[in-house]
């Protein structure tokens, strides 16, 4: 991607811990660094100008849970197409999960991802496997992978199931100051579940994954984190009781953090019934109940849930257009995350813009020990320009990901990212229709 080292952004309203988004400013970027913030700044030679037209500007958003599928599943997504999708969604930084083929379980695969993304606007941080070959049997070379650029360790897609292996993983990673992210699922309780176990699964005759399969594993991991002093990051939390467990553990001083996917505070398992077994509402953890959705929002409001993420999980059309029980789990999410957050959190006055930026800009980077972008002179420019009121339709031809497995296709959404800036690169999101 070409660079735009010098850029003048006009008429943008900064939102950050110091800015509440009320005042409009101009921001000058020189050689990728914020050089001047003021009003009425004039274009200089060799400078591109972008008029934000009164839209908001914040530090670049980060999604700490995506699947970019490279290496091995390039028919679903690549680092390049994943970055395209991220930029369209307003994300300048992502952490990608290691369930690739080969898995990201050694330093060379970590560096492969870093190299692939070198010339992208989006910073792609690999999450290395917690265990060798993602087999769950013994811990991977975490230190070497960290040196290569890994920011956390996880066997996502599967849990670290063996409690002793998890104990060692937490002990070892805490020495490195890096979190273990666990896909919380007690497989003996969850398999062969295809949706949430509840009223709807009882009616549809689909094998259910009970909430307790997630909660039991979280409870174990909280105890192990307390015992080892390690940092456990609970991946894609989805039930009320799971949020309660994390809330209590935080009160007890355990080093635990968590994230929620946008679909888990928007949709419920009733979608599987009302959409007649549409596989674009099949994911893991599965869509839960309205009470769980409410608990996700409560957890975001009181700070139990630190991060909004997407679990962006691309799958090819032919993989998803199959019998429900054969369909793979997951949906793409980067491109709709902001609109869902606007609808469920901002418009309903659950979170302020500033609080939303905590979940999208600050907290994920704090958890992963990454630099937090600020709108300040002398800082590297890592920025997202966005609005909260524009209505647009998420048509199939609007999708930037290589895959199109979204339950939001065809829907009219509100709020979108207009442009992103990072690594001296600038991208404007233009709607195709």
């Amino acid at each position: 991607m070409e660079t735009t080292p010098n850029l003048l952004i006009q008429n943008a309203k900064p939102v950050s811990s110091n800015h509440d988004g009320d005042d409009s400013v101009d921001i000058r970027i020189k050689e990728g660094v914020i050089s001047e913030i003021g009003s009425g700044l004039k274009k200089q030679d060799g400078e591109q100008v972008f008029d934000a037209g009164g839209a908001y500007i914040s530090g670049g958003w980060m999604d700490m849970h995506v699947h970019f599928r490279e290496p091995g599943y390039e028919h679903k997504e690549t680092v390049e197409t994943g970055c395209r999708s991220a930029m369209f969604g307003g994300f300048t930084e992502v952490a990608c999960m290691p369930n690739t083929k080969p898995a990201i379980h050694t330093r060379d695969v970590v560096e492969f991802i870093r190299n692939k993304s070198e010339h992208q606007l989006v910073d792609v941080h690999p999450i290395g496997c917690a265990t060798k070959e993602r087999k769950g049997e013994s811990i991977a070379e975490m230190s070497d992978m960290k040196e290569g650029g890994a920011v956390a360790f996880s066997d996502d897609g599967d849990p670290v199931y063996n409690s002793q292996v998890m104990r060692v993983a937490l002990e070892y990673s805490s020495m490195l100051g890096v979190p273990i992210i666990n896909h919380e699922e007690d497989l003996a309780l969850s398999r062969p579940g295809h949706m949430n176990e509840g009223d709807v699964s009882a009616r549809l005759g689909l094998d259910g994954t009970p909430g307790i399969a997630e909660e039991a594993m979280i409870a174990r991991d909280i105890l192990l984190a307390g015992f080892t002093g390690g940092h456990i990051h609970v991946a894609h939390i989805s039930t009320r009781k799971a949020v309660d467990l994390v809330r209590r553990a935080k009160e007890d001083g355990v080093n635990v953090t968590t994230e929620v996917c946008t679909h888990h505070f928007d949709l419920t398992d009733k979608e599987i019934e009302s959409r007649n077994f549409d596989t674009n509402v099949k994911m893991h953890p599965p869509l839960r109940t309205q009470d769980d959705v409410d608990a996700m929002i409560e957890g975001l409001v009181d700070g139990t849930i630190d991060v909004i993420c997407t679990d962006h999980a691309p799958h090819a059309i032919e993989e998803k257009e199959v019998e429900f029980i054969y369909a793979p789990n997951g949906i793409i999410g980067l491109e709709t995350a902001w609109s869902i957050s606007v609808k469920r959190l901002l418009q309903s006055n659950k979170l302020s813009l500033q609080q939303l930026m905590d979940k999208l800009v600050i907290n994920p980077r704090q958890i992963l020990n990454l630099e937090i972008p600020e709108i300040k002179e002398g800082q590297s420019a890592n920025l997202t320009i966005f609005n909260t009121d524009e209505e647009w339709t998420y048509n199939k031809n609007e999708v930037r990901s290589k895959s199109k497995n979204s339950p939001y296709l065809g829907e009219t959404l509100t709020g979108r990212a207009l442009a992103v800036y990072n690594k001296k690169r600038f991208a404007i999101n233009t709607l195709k229709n």
Partner: protein
Amino acid sequence: MPETTDYSFNQKHLLGLADYSKEDIEYVLEQAKTFREVLDRPVPKVPTLRDKTIVNLFYENSTRTRLSFELAQKRMGADVVNFSTSSSSTKKGESLKDTIRNISSMKIDMVVVRHESPGVPHFLTRCVDAAILNAGDGAHEHPTQALLDMFTIQQELGAVEGKKIAIIGDITHSRVVRSNIIGMKKLGAEVTICGPKSLMPNHVNALGANVSYNLEETLQWCDVAMALRIQLERIEGSTDLFPSLREYHQLFGIRMDHLEKYPQFTVMHPGPINRGVEMESEVADSDRAVILDQVTNGLAVRMAILYLLSGGVRI
């Protein structure tokens, strides 16, 4: 009643009884009466489907449902092709979507489908234009079985409305129970499901039936006792859902002494029976059992629904 002026049958498919109104169900059962009479004629045939081509797509083992559908189709003069395979063998080959679209390109009017995955009939409606009939999708629905059960109850007890119906056995994995609860409740019956707790869904109340773990109480209460087939594979491997067939029979098997003690109930079973498990052999063969009538009625009910979905008008 369906006889009144403003009712018309407007269903294109039979995906499940969840989509059928009380009037739709009554109308199908009414039509089935006519076909039941046809079956007693010297030449039990009506050429009402002679311009229709039907494919029976069976991805799961089935003997009686497949035979019943095929016979119903042939008695109505349809051209019939059968496609039977195990779902696992096609999992890695051609996709279901491609299979159905290829078959559909051969100018098929109706598709009868059985599959282990809930929702496959719904999925097929998104792939092709043909009328889709669900012959069982996983543990979701088995609507023609429920229709024939309700038809049998009408024949034997006069009506479904107001009757107390017990369904006994493996509730979690039964598509028969789900379709029957939906249909019977729409027709005004009271349904109790009875079986071991480990064979009931955790959110069993969502099914809308009374729940009992006590066979004696249930048999004392009911007008109809319908036993479900225990699938023997449920007690193999590490995730046994009950300890043994022996203990199952002790707790939930219908015995001759039950028939003597509670003289009011009729015995039903969707088949195939595990004699000595769901019921004693003598119970299945007694004059209280209408199990073979269910099979005959199944033919009539399937003829009726095939006829209605083929776009036919009242005969």
